[in-house]
């Protein structure tokens, strides 16, 4: 690998093997070959998006150095082409819907829309301005985020994409997330659009709280919300949405969920850790089929990644940058992570997380009324259950992932996750006997070193 002015480049020596790998097939039936992906990632993207190639050790999103994992390169390709693909789809009349992380996106695609969560919206926004280095990109990003803070409040952790949608230049058509218990800010963030400069379609799929999954009326309520949602998106897309559309979409998304669960089982049970933490997370999260704004493309890459992981497990190939006896960390809490690469430098590895995983592990029944089945699955997400139930599920995942310790990270300003931190950690500790630690995650770019110090101290303690 070359390192030009602290920038990363994919080395030419891997090209012959990489270009033999599978194409990515998109939702519209088009595809891109591995050769074309290689050209983009080695020639075009480094010029258009220099920040993405930065090797700065504080940059948590830097590209994985596991160059012999094709799915990793393809995932990054999909992230870096987010603007090209989404803008084109929007120009062709596909409505773009803003959602939140950790929720299924089946109904949005069934209705002819594209669902983007905050991280994906961020990727789309980053693609709007080219030629920026890391510093310039962070300044731009912080600047636009400040506008959201001004429009909503400085205590927001989750601005519901407000900055990009109202203050930036993303042509989002509708803001319509599920209202999970995970995040209280998202509801208020959506509400804030009512006073924004741009008038948008707004809707919330409600999430009734507290032991609701066995209540028929709660399922009916969410199902009716979902019907409203698909009707609204269908209207934007100029499409009559049928139950069959939703049923087919559920089947497609179940495939992704099942493959991700299978990949996780292989990864967790491996004697030698098959990928680094960043690649693991990307693969597991592809099971939600939402991060790339194209479920079919995500599914293509996920299938390939699952095969890659199984091969590595079979041949005891270790992921790049992972220590031999790395301490295995489970991340619980808000939608934030410590820096994977620096955690690995310190002798740890993040092997699992509850956020953005509980929805993937919840399969939707494929027969019967698809709205009701989907509603039932949604209100069964383990991460959103009352804390004792959530703790039981989390402890189970901690055991399955053979984690050595649990880090509960909550984002600054995240009321609902921070509230349950101690309760959840106590409960997990009681169930598993392994150490837990609670850390407050400051807003991006702030106090990175302090956060990492705490993570590293925890790893050291586990040693």
């Amino acid at each position, binding site marked *: 690998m070359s390192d030009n002015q602290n920038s990363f480049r994919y080395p030419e020596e891997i090209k012959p093997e990489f270009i033999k790998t599978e194409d990515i097939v998109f939702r519209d039936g088009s595809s891109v070959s591995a050769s074309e992906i290689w050209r983009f990632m080695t020639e075009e993207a480094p010029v258009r998006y220099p920040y993405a190639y930065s090797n700065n050790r504080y940059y948590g999103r830097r590209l994985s150095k596991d160059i012999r994992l094709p799915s990793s390169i393809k995932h990054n390709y999909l992230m870096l082409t987010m603007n090209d693909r989404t803008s084109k789809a929007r120009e062709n009349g596909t409505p773009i819907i803003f959602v939140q992380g950790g929720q299924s996106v089946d109904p949005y695609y069934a209705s002819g829309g594209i669902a983007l969560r905050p991280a994906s919206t961020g990727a789309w926004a980053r693609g709007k301005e080219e030629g920026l280095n890391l510093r310039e990109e962070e300044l731009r990003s912080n600047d636009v985020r400040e506008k959201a803070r*001004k*429009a*909503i*409040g400085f*205590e*927001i952790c989750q601005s519901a994409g407000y900055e990009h949608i109202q203050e930036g230049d993303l042509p989002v058509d509708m803001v319509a997330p599920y*209202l999970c*218990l995970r995040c*209280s*800010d998202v*509801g*208020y963030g*959506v*509400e*804030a*659009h*009512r*006073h924004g400069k741009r008038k948008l379609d*707004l*809707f*919330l799929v*409600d*999430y*009734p*709280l*507290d*032991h*609701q999954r066995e*209540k028929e*009326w*709660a399922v*009916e*309520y969410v199902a*009716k*919300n979902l019907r*409203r949602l698909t009707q609204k998106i269908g209207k934007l897309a100029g499409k009559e949405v049928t139950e069959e559309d939703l049923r087919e979409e559920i089947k497609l998304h179940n495939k992704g969920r099942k493959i991700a669960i299978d990949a996780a089982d292989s990864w967790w049970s491996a004697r030698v850790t098959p990928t680094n933490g960043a690649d693991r997370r990307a693969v597991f999260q592809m099971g939600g089929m939402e991060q790339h704004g194209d479920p079919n493309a995500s599914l293509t890459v996920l299938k390939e990644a699952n095969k890659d992981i199984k091969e590595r497990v079979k041949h005891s190939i270790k992921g790049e940058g992972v220590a031999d006896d790395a301490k295995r960390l489970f991340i619980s809490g808000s939608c934030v992570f410590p820096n994977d690469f620096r955690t690995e430098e310190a002798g740890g590895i993040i092997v699992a997380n509850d956020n953005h995983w509980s929805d993937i592990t919840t399969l939707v029944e494929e027969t019967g009324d698809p709205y009701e089945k989907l509603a039932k699955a949604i209100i069964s997400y383990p991460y959103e259950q*009352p*804390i*004792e139930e959530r703790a039981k599920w989390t402890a189970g995942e901690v055991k399955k992932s053979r984690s050595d310790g649990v880090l509960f990270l*909550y984002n*600054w*300003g*995240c*009321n*609902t996750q*921070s*509230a*349950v*931190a*101690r*309760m959840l950690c106590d*409960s997990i500790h009681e169930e598993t006997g392994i150490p837990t630690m609670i850390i*407050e995650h400051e807003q991006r770019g702030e106090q990175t070193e302090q956060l990492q110090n705490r993570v590293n101290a925890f790893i050291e303690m586990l040693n």
Partner: protein
Amino acid sequence: MVLETLRRIEEAVKERPQELAKAREKGARVVGWFNYNVPEEIIHALGLTPIRLGTGGDDRLVEIGSRYISTKNCVYARELVGLFAENQDPYIKNSDLVAVDATCLQTYRVAEIIKYFFKVNTLILGVPRNFYLSEGQEYFTKELEFFTQKLEEFAGSKLDTKKLAESIKLYNGIRKATKDLYEYQAVVHPPIKWREVFDVVHAGYYLDREKYLSLLKELLIELKEKHGSPVIGNLNGDARIFISGSIIPPKDTKLINIIEEVGGRIVGDDLWSGINPVLDVNIKEPSIKGIADAYINRVPHAALPYLDLETDKRLANLKKLIKDSQAQGVVFHTLRFCDPFSFKAGETKEVLRKEGVSLLEIHTEYADSDVEAIRTRTEAFVEMVKNKNLLEVEA
């Protein structure tokens, strides 16, 4: 002028803990509750004793609560947890069941925490975020039926329609009397201060509800005898301040003291610990559905997102109350990490600016470290309102 009934209400509140403990010894069962949408009528009709729980303003309790809940939660939530952790508050000690509606997510989390750490017997009432949609209202009715069923099991008796009708009548009386009382504090030479009315409202959290209504009626008679009917008009140069925003529970007097100390006169509020819970509760039939429809259609809590600014009933209510009380400036009280209100501060300011009403946001906690900073800002605001009055008089 001292109002005799106020003194009697104060005495009754002092005696209430002992009275409650004795009643429990004789078999009475107490349902403590917190949040916004628990219908007391049902608790009362089942022969249970409803008590609204929660106090504010005590930093020591906040610290105790912070051992179990995060500092990224509002101080009210933290103090609530502290109250349960310490278990010295007479109303908490005497609660056999704690009912909580899932309106504010942080207080829902409080319910989880007190159940987990202190083994409190809790009962949750689900509240729809899409409260304005027909399916949201259907959901709330079903939730209230489920909630009532659990209360019936707890009470060991079934809800009787006749008793429910009587309870509704009683609570309608309390609501009407409270609204009447608010009118007296807003007149030019008020026979009762807003602060006293606020204390009377809080007395209603604890007192036996029949006794409370009787005292309210006596207070209104006393006010009428001494003052006549209330007529709000002919402003006399006071800086008439309206309080809005996050909850100001019993014992949280920090901001109220400051406003009064710098010469402001509070003439109204739309607090969920003030007048709001008694507004627009129109129960059309003595049934669970009748109560569910009335509660879900009254002035909504800010924790329930509403997506259209123009038709927001909460804002319409705020504007109406400001107009009715002839307030000239709004102090918008936001507790740190109280997202339902603090995220709406800027928006509310803009909405009221169009109405010609100034708004000062005070973002605070229970600690005293910001008292002087708040005093400076509030004093400047009150002065500005007074100057505006002078200019209007000169004009």
